[in-house]
């Protein structure tokens, strides 16, 4: 008995527990980060499978594989799974792994809450995915859950609402943890403005999450009471207002867009200086730019609703405010370019993803300016042009940020170098197919194809065919990524050095690879003179 206790304590202090207890009761930021990332990878494939079903049906006109209702379930679930299951948990996983390592903290500030915020997610998604097997099927009213349509959902409806509540809870707890960690647990001498950009981007993202997740929870709760308790928040027949839902939803939804991209900005700001061998250009103005974007994200929500019938003054305000976002976003793009300028660049896989991010996210930014122009947006709205736009900012934007981050830090996590050749093949296939998939969607939208349709008029045949082929290629290419990650996790490949790359800046490179279970039990010393990575 005594020996057992002694042994337990020994484990507590010297390493992870054995077996499932290590994961189920995990309080270590690295273990929880790993679980978040693996969960996210799983969801990427679940949501990806749905995308493949969508693109298979759209390969040719006519209905070949699915019924319209199932198609709508797929578009709805694809979005929910990708947003709340793939992109957001991936960034929280990266934050878990890297924020303590980058600020010299021994762990996250609230490790038990960290455990809870992760373990909520599998249950939330079990609830959500179980709706696929319910009578009436999964939610099919779009991920935006607009009433009155969403109220026509069958048995899945309360499960949808409850799973969104759970995802929100998880996100809020994750965000609180990140803020508390960053604010309280930085190494001595690491002032806020000395923090690495990834940490900065997450600090601001976490505030966005805390600000808007409760708004989403409120909106879906009102849906719930409209459905089951006789309220009429959004039902015109009872004196309610269906448009009010859209205002509330997008007050959440627009900052949500930045929640999914700001951490990717942070990742790119880490990767480019390392491979350009040159400090990040304009560190402070990058911080101000992120802050400006975060602020503006709260006052542009109605640009998702230019066709609902707003007063002219409202449309003008939201048009101008939306266009303004291009300014700080532009500053970031220019600063990254200036970081590369006169550097000494090499193009390993993380850098390739970062550079592709720069080019392709900018294309998403251009179409972003276009959709801000209200008269033109009247044409773009709810067409495939919008589908192209947001996939350009979410796939080569957020997803490339995540993939770049994984390649960048995988050697630190696993202690093994990934296979560079395979990584480059993965990159090129991904980068080519992402364009084959999404670029033609601009054309389809301009030519008049609405989004969320399972079948289309025959003049849209050609580009849909191209987009589908691209999507299949894109989907298949991701198996290379899985192979690479699993190889490293199983200890194959060259052992990685502590620095991994050529003299990278940042505290995470001062600990061995793989990072030991406990790091920075004694706070590290930050060089007195601002080191390039921190200034």
């Amino acid at each position: 008995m005594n020996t057992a206790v002694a042994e337990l304590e020994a484990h507590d202090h010297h390493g992870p527990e054995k077996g499932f207890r290590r994961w189920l009761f995990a309080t270590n930021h690295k273990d929880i980060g790993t679980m978040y990332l693996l969960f996210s990878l799983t969801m990427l494939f679940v949501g990806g499978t749905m995308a493949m079903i969508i693109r298979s049906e759209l390969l040719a006109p006519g209905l070949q594989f699915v019924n319209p209702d199932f198609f709508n379930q797929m578009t709805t679930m694809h979005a929910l799974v990708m947003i709340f299951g793939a992109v957001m948990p991936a960034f929280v996983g990266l934050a878990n792994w890297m924020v303590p390592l980058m600020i010299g903290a021994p762990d996250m500030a609230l490790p038990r809450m960290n455990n809870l915020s992760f373990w909520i997610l599998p249950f939330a998604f079990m609830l959500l995915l179980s709706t696929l097997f319910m009578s009436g099927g999964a939610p099919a009213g779009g991920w935006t859950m607009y009433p009155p349509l969403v109220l026509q959902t069958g048995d899945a409806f309360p499960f949808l609402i409850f799973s969104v509540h759970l995802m929100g809870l998880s996100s809020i707890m994750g965000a609180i943890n990140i803020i508390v960690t960053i604010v309280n647990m930085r190494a001595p001498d690491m002032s806020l403005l000395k923090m690495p950009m990834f940490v900065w981007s997450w600090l601001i993202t976490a505030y966005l999450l805390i600000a808007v997740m409760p708004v989403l929870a409120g909106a879906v709760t009102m849906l719930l009471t409209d459905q089951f308790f006789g309220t009429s928040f959004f039902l015109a027949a009872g004196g309610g207002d269906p448009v009010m839902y859209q205002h509330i939803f997008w007050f959440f939804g627009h900052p949500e867009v930045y929640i999914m991209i700001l951490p990717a900005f942070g990742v790119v700001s880490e990767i480019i200086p390392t491979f350009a061998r040159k400090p990040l250009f304009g560190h402070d103005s990058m911080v101000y730019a992120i802050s400006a974007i975060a602020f503006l994200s709260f006052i542009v929500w109605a640009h998702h609703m230019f066709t609902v019938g707003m007063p002219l003054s409202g449309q003008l305000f939201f048009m101008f405010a939306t266009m303004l976002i291009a300014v700080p976003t532009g500053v970031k793009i220019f600063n990254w370019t200036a970081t590369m300028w006169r550097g000494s660049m090499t193009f390993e896989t993380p850098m390739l993803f970062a550079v592709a991010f720069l080019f392709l996210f900018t294309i998403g930014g251009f179409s972003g300016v276009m959709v801000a122009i209200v008269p033109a947006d009247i044409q773009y709205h709810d067409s495939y042009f919008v589908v192209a736009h947001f996939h350009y900012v979410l796939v080569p934007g957020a997803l490339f940020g995540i993939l770049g981050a994984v390649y960048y830090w995988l050697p630190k996590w696993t202690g093994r170098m990934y296979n560079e050749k395979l990584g480059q093949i993965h990159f090129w296939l991904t980068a080519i197919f992402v364009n084959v998939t999404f670029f033609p969607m601009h054309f389809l939208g301009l030519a008049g194809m609405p989004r969320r349709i399972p079948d289309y008029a025959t003049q849209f045949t050609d580009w849909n065919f191209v987009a589908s082929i691209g999507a299949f290629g894109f989907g298949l290419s991701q198996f290379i990524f899985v192979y690479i990650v699993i190889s490293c996790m199983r200890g194959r490949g060259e052992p990685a050095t502590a620095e991994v790359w050529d003299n990278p800046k940042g505290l995470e490179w001062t600990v061995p690879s793989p990072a030991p279970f406990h790091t920075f039990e004694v706070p590290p010393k930050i060089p007195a003179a601002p080191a390039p990575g921190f200034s």
Partner: protein
Amino acid sequence: MIRRLSLCLTGLLVATGTRADWAVNMPRGITELSAETYGLHMMVFWWCVGIAVVVFGAMLYTMVMHRKSRGVTPAKFSHSMTAEVTWTIIPVIILLIMAVPSAETLIRIEDSRDPAHTVVVTGYQWKWHYTYQGEDVSFYSTLARASSEARHKGANIDPATVENYLLDVDRPLVVPRGAKIRVLLTSNDVIHSWWVPELSIKKDAIPGFMNEIWFQAEETGLFRGQCAELCGMDHAYMPIVVEVVEPEAFETWIDSQREPAEPAVGRTAP
């Protein structure tokens, strides 16, 4: 299923050879405002292309020239106030250049005064209902039969053989050329959206709300669109067809559509 898919693929290859369907741009449309909208779209597009040439050019240049393999030693600079102020101000100016004409067009779009005719459009799952205000003419407009037969899974009808597949209706909305038509939109069930690209019109039909848009078609012909807001299972199957005819033809048409007047007997004088 495989057979049907291969049928479609064959049809597709044939179609590629015979029809120029690789459309890449927005239609210019048939109203003054649709042409203006197209102009704005192209203006912003060309600005984006210009900026892309400069920014991507700089990125490509540095990626080619400043490589380690060329033996470059990295520079040390990490900020420049002048550069950052410049690339903050220039975008602001470009945005202003875009914003002013956009606002002007938007103001014209919102000016729906003095219409010649008013049509009330009501969205239903999944069809449209049109009422000519003050004309005693109203009817439903649903997906044309040929499309309806071909659209089901296992229908074994190649969509390429159906004329205007999914974009044809039994009864189009008929309007006169050159007259300002006001469209009032509402819905009977869920939110729909009435979109005709050639008219540069898209507006949501929302239950409990009456939305307003207008257009003035300058050309005759048939112009096709679709519901743009996800409205349930058959969202893809409620197209819109607007037939623009000469004013005289419109008068004849609307007279022929009026419901026969009820017998005057027993009615009180208005």
